[in-house]
């Protein structure tokens, strides 16, 4: 016998999932006026978790009206200090109900409980906590003596970090004095609905936060509703472009956080064991469903072979399986659609001549799974080196000089993030200057903090979330 980790599943009993959910409008859960319903499934088992409403145009209108009323009513009149205390309350409630939220997130999304427990939920609470402190300090944020909110914000978020993205959107918007209509992703609505309950427990005035579940057409109706002053979207670049077209000429303010194809650049003088960890974190965190994932490993040619060797050895220790097991590193792919997309792109890698490798793993029979995968022999022109896969697939490329690393890293329409691994400080700063990316991590990867602005260059979108800069997206500045 050796040190096998026996299954250590987190108990499902901490969450109560309703059979069906209404829409959260004006502080209450209400049945939809139009539209229908959707089923949300556990991607690790394909079992149906709940039925949620799909908001139609009438529901969108009602939610926008509720948000408008709250904006022109209690929320708009409220002093910043009182708004702050509401946000602090929400932060505390998220901390108090953290285990419940983590389990629910892993059930609905498929991500490992270790990540939802240690990353998603605490960070979501931290975002409310941080932004609470801005609500009564906006005059110090650098946007003039009395910056004004925009009004009603329509916010559409993706399925990869359902609760965390809701927090990224709601916290700054509310801190700045806006009211919100949030649409969670079609496949991951449950934690947003629990967040609605948290808003109720915090006694947040009705209409300040409204949550509309639904699919793409709900989102389209929401962002194009004339009563909306601000649109914030996180998701794919294709949909981002559609939204930018849809709101053009409307006078609505827009911020977009879209796709990426980040380079994680490892120099020969890197702290090698930590670089391996950073590569693993960069692409296998959240099954690679991360817009800023370090999906392109750019390794200096002198070390590419030993680095890949170390990486393979490390990947052999990754544990894929039940997302609720505390020892699971790689969970389920969020949906059948996404799994098909990953498979399709990975197959294109084979066809174009790249060499695929995965550690020996057994994929569960039911559910949506894809093994951690590394492609070597990749060239810059391969689809897997250019297109966002949004899955646990790493492509390995090499470079010879810092300038070549920059050229290859920047050779993409995206520009969300990049990683640099070297023990040489001056090179880190030089690389950071040269890289066209909104976030540059040095000797680390995939770090997030509410105090740190996040967002992209070029087709990765515009506007920032987090930090002082993130407030600008929700203020009339």
């Amino acid at each position, binding site marked *: *016998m*050796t040190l096998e*980790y026996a299954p250590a599943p987190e108990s499902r009993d901490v969450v109560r999932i309703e059979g069906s959910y209404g829409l959260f409008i004006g502080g209450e859960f209400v049945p939809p006026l139009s539209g229908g319903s959707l089923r949300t499934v556990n991607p690790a088992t394909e079992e149906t978790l709940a039925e949620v409403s799909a908001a139609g145009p009438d529901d969108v209108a009602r939610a926008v009206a509720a948000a408008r009323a709250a904006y022109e009513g209690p929320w708009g009149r409220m002093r910043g200090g009182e708004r702050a205390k509401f946000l602090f309350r929400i932060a505390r409630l998220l901390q108090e109900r953290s285990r419940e939220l983590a389990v629910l997130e892993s059930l609905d999304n498929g991500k490992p409980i270790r990540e939802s427990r240690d990353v998603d939920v605490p960070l979501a609470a931290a975002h409310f906590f941080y932004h609470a402190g801005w609500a009564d300090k906006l005059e110090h944020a650098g946007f003039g003596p009395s910056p004004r909110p925009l009004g009603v914000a329509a916010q559409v978020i993706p399925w990869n970090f359902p609760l965390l993205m809701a927090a990224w959107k709601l916290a700054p918007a509310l801190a700045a004095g806006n009211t919100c209509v949030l649409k969670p992703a079609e496949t991951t609505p449950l934690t947003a609905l629990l967040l609605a309950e948290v808003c109720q427990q915090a006694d947040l005035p009705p209409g300040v936060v409204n949550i509309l579940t639904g699919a793409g057409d709900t989102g389209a109706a929401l962002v194009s509703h004339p009563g909306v002053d601000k649109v914030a979207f996180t998701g794919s670049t294709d949909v981002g472009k559609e939204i930018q077209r849809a709101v053009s000429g409307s006078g609505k303010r827009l911020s977009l956080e879209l796709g990426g194809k980040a380079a994680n650049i490892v120099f020969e*003088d*890197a*702290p*090698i*064991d*930590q670089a391996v960890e950073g590569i693993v974190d960069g692409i296998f965190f959240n099954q690679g469903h991360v817009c800023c994932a370090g999906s392109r490993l750019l390794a200096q040619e002198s070390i590419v072979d030993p680095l890949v060797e170390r990486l393979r050895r490390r990947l052999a220790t990754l544990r894929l399986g039940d997302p609720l097991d505390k020892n699971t590193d790689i969970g389920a792919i969020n949906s059948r659609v996404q799994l098909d997309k990953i498979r399709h792109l990975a197959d294109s890698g084979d066809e174009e001549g790249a060499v695929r490798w995965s550690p020996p793993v057994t994929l569960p029979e039911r559910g949506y799974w894809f093994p951690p995968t590394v492609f070597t022999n990749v060239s810059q022109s391969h689809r897997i080196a250019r297109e966002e896969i949004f899955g646990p697939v790493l492509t390995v490329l090499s470079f010879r000089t810092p300038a070549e690393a920059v050229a290859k890293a920047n050779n993409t329409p995206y520009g969300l993030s990049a990683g640099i691994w070297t023990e040489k400080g001056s090179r880190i700063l030089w690389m950071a200057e040269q890289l066209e990316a909104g976030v540059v991590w040095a*000797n680390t990867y995939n770090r997030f903090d509410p105090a740190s602005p996040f967002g992209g260059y070029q087709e990765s979108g515009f506007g920032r979330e987090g930090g002082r800069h993130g407030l600008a997206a929700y203020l009339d500045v």
Partner: protein
Amino acid sequence: MPPQPLGTARAARAFFGDLATSDTALRQLLHGLPGVDQAGAEARAAFLATRSVKKDSKLFALELAIAMIDLTTLEGADTPGKVAALCAKALRPDPADGDVPHVAAVCLYPDLVAVARREIGDKGVAVAAVATAFPSGRATLSVKLADVRQALDAGADEIDMVIDRGAFLSGCYGQVYEEVRAVREACGEAVLKVILETGELATLDNVARAAWLAMLGGADFIKTSTGKVSPASTAPVALVMLSAVRDFADATGRRVGVKVAGGIRTAKDAIRYLVLAYETAGEEWLHPSAFRIGASSLLNDLLMQRAKQLSGAYQGPDYFTVD
């Protein structure tokens, strides 16, 4: 020789062929090792601490940890009576349960080795002596070697030596290396554990360098601490040392063991170290021949947790012998 980031294998081979032991040559080798990023190493160690070991695996881990213990007493107040009691505990940790394995070794000062040898005989528990002017290492080489020889003559199976941290920190790598080599020679067949005293080395880069220096010098084990300096063993330090023995094995084919010591008092701590060893160096290190835990009060906590695993009830200290 230019710095070789991943070239430790090549460098080590070069050195084994024609061993240049000047400070300069050793500096080039040691400073050519890949750097250790502290934040990253600490994050990795903290991550591995969240691994959850349950059920049968936990029982296995607890018994393995018992079998890996170097049951230690290193006090000025040690007496033959104390050592005799320690040896009895080492041979049969739980008088009420013969299924509990004996520990790996007892660890004591050289002047008490004869007592331990008499008590233990050839019953399978090794007798380890700290030597080379433990814990400070501040003595001449001849005194250190005499210390080692006397311990061996008295019947020690294993020697826990300390490196000269002063020499290491002032860059006299050749001196440190030669001392390890000399003790290695004096040890003959005996197992040599080289204490790096990582709390005094201060940086993880230094830990990696001292680990390589000790391994090149012939250590069978590299050991974190004397237990007399704070901080003693920490998870990031163990992580770096386990990475070093892994890389050294890749480079040379020789498996060097790791001994963690100092401040490890609970079963939970011990299991975390086993997880570190398992995920960093690999399964081959999960054996008393390759991983040791220097401790005293840890043993009773392991026994208590083991009894809890078997009976389901939380235990109290009065049901386990205090020796």
